[in-house]
C-alpha cells in the first residue's frame, strides 16, 4: 500500500478497473492500448484491471449491464464510474478515474 498515496499524501483505496471489450473489434483494441498507456504512469501495484471479452463471456457482460463496447468501469474506490469509447480523451478518462487534479502528470505542476 506504500504506493497508494497520491502526491497530496492522502491514502486512497487501490484502484480496481474492468474493461469490457470485443476481441478483434478495432474500437476495443484502441481502448485497451489507450488504457494501458494511461496506467503506465502510475505504479503497477496501485491498480488492477480485469479485461472481459463479451464474445467469450456474454453472460457476464449482460449481467453487468454493458451496452456498448468498449466500456471501462471503475469498480473501486467509490464512487463507481463508467467510461465508454476508445478512451481517446486522456483528460476525461483520468477525471473519471478520480485522478485529477491529484496526479501531477494530469495537470502539470501544482500552481
Amino acid at each position, binding site marked *: 500500500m506504500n504506493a497508494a498515496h497520491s502526491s497530496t499524501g492522502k491514502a486512497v483505496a487501490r484502484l480496481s478497473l474492468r474493461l*469490457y*471489450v*470485443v476481441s478483434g*473489434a478495432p*474500437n*476495443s483494441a*484502441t*481502448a485497451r492500448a*489507450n488504457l494501458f498507456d494511461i496506467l503506465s504512469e502510475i505504479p503497477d501495484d496501485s491498480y488492477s484491471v480485469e479485461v472481459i471479452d*463479451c*464474445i467469450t463471456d*456474454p*453472460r457476464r*457482460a*449482460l449481467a453487468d*449491464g*454493458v*451496452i*456498448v*463496447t*468498449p*466500456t471501462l468501469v471503475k469498480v473501486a474506490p467509490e464512487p463507481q*464510474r*463508467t*467510461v*465508454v*469509447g*476508445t*478512451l*481517446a*480523451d486522456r483528460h*476525461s*478518462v483520468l*477525471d*473519471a478515474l478520480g485522478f485529477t487534479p491529484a496526479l501531477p502528470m494530469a495537470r502539470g505542476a501544482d500552481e
Partner: protein
Amino acid sequence: MSSRRKNITDAIRHAPVKGIDKSATCIGGFDEITGGGIPRGRVTLLVGGPGAGKTVFALETLVNGAVKHREPAIFVAFEENSRQIIANAATFGWDLEELERERLFFLDARLSPTVVQSGAFDLSGMLAQISDKAKEMQATRVVFDGIDVLLTLLGDQNAERREMYRIYDWLQSEGLTGIITAKAAESDRPSTERYAFMQFMVDCVVLFHHRLLDRVSIRTVRVMKYRGSSFAESEFPLIISKDGIHVSTFGPKSLDVDASTTRVSSGIARLDTMLSGGYFAGSAVLISGAPGTAKTTLSAACAGMACARGERAVVLSFDEGAAQYVRNLKSVGIDLQPHVDSGALVIHSVRTESQGAEEHLLSIKNMLDEHKPQVLVIDPISALGKTGGPIAASHASVRAIDLAKSRGITTIVTSLVADDNQATEATSAQISTIADTWIHLAYLVKGGERNRTLTIVKSRGMKHSSQVRELILSDHGVSLADVYSAGGEVLVGTARYEHEQAKHEEERAREEETQRHRTRLRLAEAELAARITGLQRELDAHRAELQRADSEESERKTRRAEGHRAVLQRRTADADAS
C-alpha cells in the same frame, strides 16, 4: 370513393399467401394489409414521429408472438426503462411480468447520464450478448427500440450508419425477425430523415403518422415498402385503444352479406304498412331531416320495439345523455326504461368531440362485440363526421354501417340535414347510397302551423308507399296520418283535421242517404213480392178451373159414348155396324 375502396379491398384480398415467409403480428388489421404480417427472418423498419405508436406496435408484435405463437422474443430498449415499458404495457392488459419469466426478455440499453464518453464505441459487444441470450431462450423476434438515442452519442453520421449496418447484418446472419424503430419528425417525407438509408436497406418499411385534424388527434399507418410481397399501399387509420393497436381496414372485405327477407318492425304500425311489412332485418336505414323533425323518436321506436320482442339493441347517442334520452322519449310514449333495466338496451352517450372518428368506430365495434344486438341506432351519424375531417369521417360512417351490416344487425342511422335541400349534406348523400331504406322527415309550414311530414325516399327490394304522411307525436306514441291534397295543396295539421272533419260529415250524410235509398228499395221489393204471391194464387185458381173444365168435358164424352152403346145393345143391331 367506391372504386378506391374496391381497389383496396382487392389489394387486400390478392395479397399473396405464399412467396416470402411472414410472421404474423396479430395486430388487428395489419396482417390483413400486409397479407400475413412482417417478413420472417428479415428486418422491418418502423418510422414515425413521437407518439405515433411505433413502440406500442413493436411491443404488441412481440407480446402476440409470445402469447399466441409461443415465439420467444427480446426487446432492446434504448429509450425507455424496461420497467416503464412493462408498466405501460399493463395498461393494455398485457402481463409482461408473467411473460418475462420465459418468453420475453427486456434489455435495458439506456446509457446512464453519468457515463462519460471518450471516443468511439460500437454495438458488437451487445450483439454478442443478445446472440447468446437468443440461443438460450430460442428467441425468434428482436426489437431495437429508439436506437438513435444511443447512436447520436457517436456524433458521427458514418459511425452511426456503420452501427445500423452492423445490426442489420447481425439480424440477417442470426436469422432473426427484426424490428427497428426510427424517429421521423415528419413522416410524410421520411427520405429526408437521417436514417433514410435504412429504408433502402431493410425489407419492410412501415410509416406511422400522428397529426391533428380539426384539433382531434389522428393516427395513421402506411406500409411504404415490402420486398417480395404485395401489400395494401394506402394509409390506414390506426387506433391505440385500451387493448392495443387496431388498424382500420375498410370494414368487411366483400359485400357478400346475406340478404334477409325477414322484416323488422319500425316500431310504428303505419310505417310498417307503408314499407309493406317493415325494414328488412340486417339492412341499413337512414332517417334524415331538419332539427326537431323526430329523427330520434323514429329511430328509438325501432330499438324499443326490438327490445319488446325480446331482442337486444344498442343506441349510440351523441351529445345527449342516456337519462335525458330516455326521459325525452317517454314524453312521446316510448318507454325505454324497462329495457335499460333488463339489460336488453344499452344506451351509450358520447361527446362528439371526445375522440376521433376512428375511436368512435372502434367503440361501436366493441359494443357490438360485447352486447351482440339485433338493432343498432347511431344518432346522429353526422356526429361521426364532425371529427377527423370530412374524408376520415365519411369513411367512418360508411364503415360503421358496413360493420353492422356484416353482422346482420339492423342499423338505423339519423342524419341532420341543415336545410331541406337533401343534396347539400355530403355525408348524408354518401350514406344514402349504402342505406337500404331512406326516410326523410321535413316540416311543412302551412296556415300558421309547422307540421312534420314523412316520406320514404327509397327502400331497396320492397314495395313502399310513395305518399307523404304526416307524422304525429302524442303521449301515446308516434303515428302517421294521411296527408290530404285539396285543390293542389297538401293539408296537414289543423287544416288536415278540418278537412278530415268535413269529409266525415260528408261521409255521414252520404251514408244516411244510402240507408234511406236502401229502405225504399226494400219496401218496393216487398211490395213486388206480395204482388207476385197474389198473381201466383190467381194463376193457380185459373189452372184449377181449367183442369176442372177439362175433366168435366171428358166425363161428358164418356157418358155420351156409353149411352150410345146401350142404345145399340137394346136395338140388337148388327155387330159393329157402326
